[in-house]
């Protein structure tokens, strides 16, 4: 009972820092999806160089720990910028470095998700669209895209949850997010009530993950309902 009260108390102290987590996650998801789209396009392209490069990129990212990616971006980018472009970015908000690192990490699985969703739609759909007189773009936009969306959605949400969790490493380069806040609270209590504090932290992430899951299930259900009525 005592512990539950403590955890609720800590929840109240941690929640104000949630906006950092949300900003980092949402911007990385948006930017990462765009980069992922580009990668998926590169993988489909005629140029063998583009295909090989994007393949190598995706496979390297797959084998890269997120913490290392964050550190390399954080320490490496300022050097790159000052050395090649003579721009000093040391003073950037540290959050930007995390967003860049997470964008790079997120783009790889997303490109694979997009590609496999696109490939899962049968070629006949495009041919049928062209045969009823739609342009390739119209067919893509009105027929292929909605179908690919349904296929990609669960995996995309899964990756988004992973990204949210990787975002919890933001604190390692000194941004005061929820994790950093939790550590501060523990330090202020001279190490006391540590596990209660961290449980409160975990709870917040758990609720967000469950919410994403729930949202996806609802969207999926509504799509399936549509399909069924068409089938029947």
């Amino acid at each position, binding site marked *: 009972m005592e512990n539950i009260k403590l955890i609720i108390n800590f929840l109240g102290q941690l929640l104000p820092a949630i906006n950092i987590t949300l900003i980092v996650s949402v911007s990385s998801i948006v930017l990462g999806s765009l980069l992922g789209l580009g990668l998926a396009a590169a993988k489909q392209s005629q140029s063998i160089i583009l295909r090989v490069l994007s393949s190598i990129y995706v496979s390297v990212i797959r084998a890269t720990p997120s913490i*290392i990616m964050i550190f390399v971006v954080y320490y490496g980018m300022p050097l790159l910028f000052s*050395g090649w472009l003579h721009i000093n970015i040391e003073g950037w908000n540290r959050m930007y470095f995390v967003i860049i690192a997470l964008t790079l990490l997120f783009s790889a699985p997303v490109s694979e998700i997009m590609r496999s969703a696109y490939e899962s739609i049968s070629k006949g759909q495009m041919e049928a669209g062209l045969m009823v007189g739609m342009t390739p773009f119209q067919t893509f936009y009105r027929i292929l895209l909605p179908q690919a969306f349904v296929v990609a959605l669960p*995996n995309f949400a899964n990756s988004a949850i992973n990204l949210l*969790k990787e975002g*919890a490493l933001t604190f390692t380069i000194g941004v005061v997010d929820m994790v950093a806040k939790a550590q501060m609270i523990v330090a202020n209590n001279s190490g006391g009530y540590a*596990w209660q504090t*961290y449980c409160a932290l975990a709870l917040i992430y758990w609720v967000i993950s469950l919410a994403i899951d729930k949202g996806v299930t609802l969207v999926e259900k509504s799509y399936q309902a549509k399909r069924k009525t068409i089938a029947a």
Partner: protein
Amino acid sequence: MSLNTDFMVKVAQTAIQGVPVTLQIVLVALLISLPVGCLFALIRIYRVKGLEQIVKLYVSFVRGTPIIAQILIVYSAFPSLLNMIIGKAAFSINPIYYAYIVFTLNSIATLTEVFRSALQTVDKGQMEAGLMVGMQPRQTFWRIILPQALISALPNITNATLYLIKNSSLAFIMSVKDITAIAKTEAAFNYNFLEAYLVVWIYYLIICYSAEVIFYLLERYFSKFRRSTKKTNLFNWRPLSIKQPEVRAEADLTESERTNHAQNRGLKKRL
């Protein structure tokens, strides 16, 4: 911009001592979580009363929270727990044991989901066929269902292992002397952090790719009964053609199920 290559060579030489530590964590976690994950998957599939809900909650919690939060919880809760149980002072415990605990608990959740979906991919007809040649359900499970499920789980076990290897890079937070910890200490002298982390990166790439090759060979060896799959060349070789982990294709399955039936019905009519 120039990298201090001399320093990189030096870090590479010292940080290599951390490689066995990382491998140790990964192996211990895998060896424990593989059987336990399989057991948990069975609990969920056969809906064992009481336990099913616990497993579900456990998997949901572990998969819904960051590994860093799990590390912090275990690292802060276990010392007092141990104190209560055995009365042994926590600081005398080698921190690598905390790493074993965290990463095992984490992998169990991932592998439970992997085995659950793998067991579900085995056709119901396999069990029925086993019963119809007179085998007991349990015999059919061990001899027919499980071997097939394990092999179809291999790609996702590979993914789970990579995930584990990458997560283990956070062991330094529990003051385990792994690759990252050693490189970090070295870098702190002259602030050569970039060089140090590039070296760590390369080590992780090597470890991950080795794991992928090992699993790829395992898969090729064990899936000889699926010989109809396409041949391997440089471009569809696994490390260059990544399969997406955990494809939740339930919607697809029902779809193909339906088309299957539709075809059967068509055939029936024709005959």
